């Protein structure tokens, strides 16, 4: 059930109408049933996994919260981690690592045939695993109280707007909203409308149209591609993945607002970042803050020597890459981001906390944005390619054959048509410093912006609609 499908909006209309008639307790029960219907729509069997994650984390958190014994608390936390990460590892990484191990052994003349499970990856497993774990770890750390309301906790784990592709919520933010009665202000409706419109526009107009361009270029025979086409293919993918994912997050936030929930902001115009560090403060914020709080800081963060900080950054980004999937291309993507974060820290930071150089003039900022965007594009090349070899060969193409081709001109026209208005809009938002600035201007201007969005969705939605990229993670 995709956000850009008719069936989802029929489903949501039913949920929304029922929601208005019910009191808080019944609202939660109805939302839980709706969330399970939403998730079971992909495959009913996946519900077993989400139920296991819910029950295990619910019980271990109660055990941790009610126990004074440090040893017992640690054992319970370990159980929660092993079960949650075990399920994730089993479904997401088992075949990959076993396959790689077999290849490794074959190089030394050892041939083994271990069993592979070949199971379809449950949608959104990485998202709800991280969200559930954050609750148990926070209870362990004493940052959040445990809850005894099982059904409310189940709703926290499975709340349908953000279940399959985030934002990865924290228990301290979302759980109180589940437990307390919610009020919906009229501004929630207008902000929800804005977020849903923006999300649908980003997904249906920009991401899906850029997908056609990127898919065509990435599926071409490498020898026939010019460097110009490679560059445009990567640009197209950069905006495809940004609009696909941030579009999903925006719709999730908008739909949640209509139900009285406030989900965290997941994107803040990431391509205006001037440094790798700033990029991660703007891109997939819910994951980057999760990795910061539950991995980078426990590893030592930037508290130790410079070398230790580089190690912690590198490890965090490597695991961030692996979180996306069991493929060397994702690992390379994470490693590249780890490398540029370390390089940036090395060049621009005197000590772990003191910054040496800050961009002041407009041209310095523009140059920094330009460089950062292209560094991110290099990482997308690895992310999108089927193999590292393909990524490297495509990258080399940029410097060996930069013919301006007909398809390249076509692709640049398509990118300009779909992406430029979005960049201008985001520039305006950036200048305003308010993500919801459009909801606060005169209704006439807002009508004009929405009219542009709806006409683009009406007439320029491609015939082939693509699934959200992050569903596979």
């Amino acid at each position, binding site marked *: 059930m995709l956000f850009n499908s008719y069936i989802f909006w029929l489903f949501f209309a039913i949920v929304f109408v029922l929601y208005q008639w019910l009191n808080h307790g019944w609202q939660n029960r109805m939302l839980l049933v709706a969330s399970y219907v939403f998730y079971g729509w992909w495959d009913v069997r996946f519900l077993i996994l989400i139920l296991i994650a819910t029950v295990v984390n619910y019980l271990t958190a109660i055990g941790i919260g009610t126990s004074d014994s440090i040893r017992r608390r640690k054992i319970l936390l370990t159980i929660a981690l092993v079960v949650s990460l075990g399920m994730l590892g089993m479904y997401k990484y088992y075949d990959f690592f076993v396959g790689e191990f077999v290849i490794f052994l074959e190089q030394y003349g050892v041939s083994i045939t271990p069993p592979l499970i070949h199971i379809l990856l449950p949608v959104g497993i990485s998202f709800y695993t991280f969200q559930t774990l954050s609750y148990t770890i926070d209870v362990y750390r004493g940052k959040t109280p445990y809850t005894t309301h099982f059904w409310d906790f189940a709703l926290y784990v499975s709340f349908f707007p953000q279940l399959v592709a985030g934002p990865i919520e924290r228990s301290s933010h979302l759980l109180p909203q589940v437990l307390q009665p919610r009020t919906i202000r009229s501004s929630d409706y207008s902000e929800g409308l804005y977020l849903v419109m923006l999300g649908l526009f980003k997904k249906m107009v920009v991401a899906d149209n850029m997908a056609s361009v990127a898919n065509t270029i990435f599926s071409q025979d490498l020898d026939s591609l010019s460097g110009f086409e490679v560059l445009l293919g990567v640009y197209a993918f950069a905006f495809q993945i940004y609009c696909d994912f941030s579009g999903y997050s925006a719709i999730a936030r908008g739909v949640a607002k209509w139900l009285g929930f406030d989900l965290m902001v997941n994107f803040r115009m990431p391509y205006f970042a001037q440094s790798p560090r700033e990029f991660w403060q703007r891109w997939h914020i819910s994951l980057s803050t999760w990795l910061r709080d539950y991995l980078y800081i426990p590893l030592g963060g930037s508290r130790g020597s410079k070398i230790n900080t580089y190690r912690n950054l590198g490890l965090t980004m490597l695991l961030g890459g692996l979180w996306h999937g069991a493929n060397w291309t994702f690992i390379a993507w994470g490693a590249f981001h780890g490398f540029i974060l370390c390089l940036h820290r090395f060049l621009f930071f005197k000590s772990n906390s003191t910054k040496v150089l800050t961009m002041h003039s407009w041209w310095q900022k523009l140059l920094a944005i330009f460089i950062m965007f292209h560094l991110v594009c290099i990482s997308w090349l690895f992310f999108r390619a089927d193999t590292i070899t393909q990524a490297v060969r495509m990258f080399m193409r940029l410097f060996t054959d930069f013919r301006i081709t007909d398809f390249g001109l*076509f692709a640049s*026209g398509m990118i300009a048509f779909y992406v430029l208005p979005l960049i201008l809009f985001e520039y305006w938002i950036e200048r305003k410093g308010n993500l919801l600035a459009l909801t606060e201007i005169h209704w006439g201007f807002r*009508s004009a912006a929405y009219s542009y969005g709806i006409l683009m969705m009406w007439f320029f939605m491609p015939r082939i609609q693509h699934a959200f990229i992050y569903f596979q993670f």
Partner: protein
Amino acid sequence: MRSSISSSKSEIKVLAVLLCVLLAAEVSMRIFGPAFSLELRRTHEIPVNARTMAAAEGMRFVVLGNSLTNAGFDAAAFTKELAQSGVTPVHIQVRHFPGSGSCEWFHIFKHFFVDTARLPDVLILPFNITSVQDDFPVTIGRLVNFCDVNDIPGVLFNDFHDFGDRTEFLHAYASTSFANRDKVRQAVFDILIPHYHSGETAIHTASTTPIPDETSSLVAGSYQQLERLMLLARSHGVIVIAVPMPASQPYSIDAELIGIIQSTGSLYADARMEAGLTLDEFRDGIHMNRRGAGLFSRALARHLQAKLPHDVE
């Protein structure tokens, strides 16, 4: 409280403007649509030509196909070749819509020829193997142009098996601007985007599966849509001729399809070998060039000479 009321009011104004914008788009499309869309003009021509053909004397042919027919069927060469063998006069109406298959052909034939009782004597269906399989994608926005309100239940139950497709069909049926959004997009991009047609072709080629060649293992498909079309035509006494179109790589026709053609009393005319085409007669892997179209259409006419009645009442 006051600010929340004014916020609600302004949101209602915004929604009202959006509704007006969509309404304006709808009215504009209904008035000006055919002026800028060749496909819409072609669709509007079908009933006019069907009326003319119904009133004419001689053997009447309707050819329904897709871009393969557009590229590979030369009506003038076909007619001339038939005339030389005594099948004359011939009235021929060729209707081709890119990316169409047997589902759309069924509705074109039913809506414009059967429902209006303007039947041809012969229905020719040039095809490649994928376009007549049931899982061939249907262009929903275009299909609504071949249907009227009475067809809706049939379309919803027989042609679509997915909630999304059914809803999109109803949406497209209710809104001409939504149904024909592809034409708006094309008209805008023809002006704004350099090399738009070749770029779209490259995207289309990259996203579609190539035609299976002789050496590949052919997966038998299901052909209920084609069977339905053939049975409809045969039940009205129309001769149906299924014509496999040449491709640069030879491909085989699965036995299931041949069985359906025979069981519906249709004819199978495979003139691919007789046309003697070489790679030079193709402009890409599957579409013939002008010379190829001439060679193939003449070969097809010769192939059909013995199968067609020479006198038509």
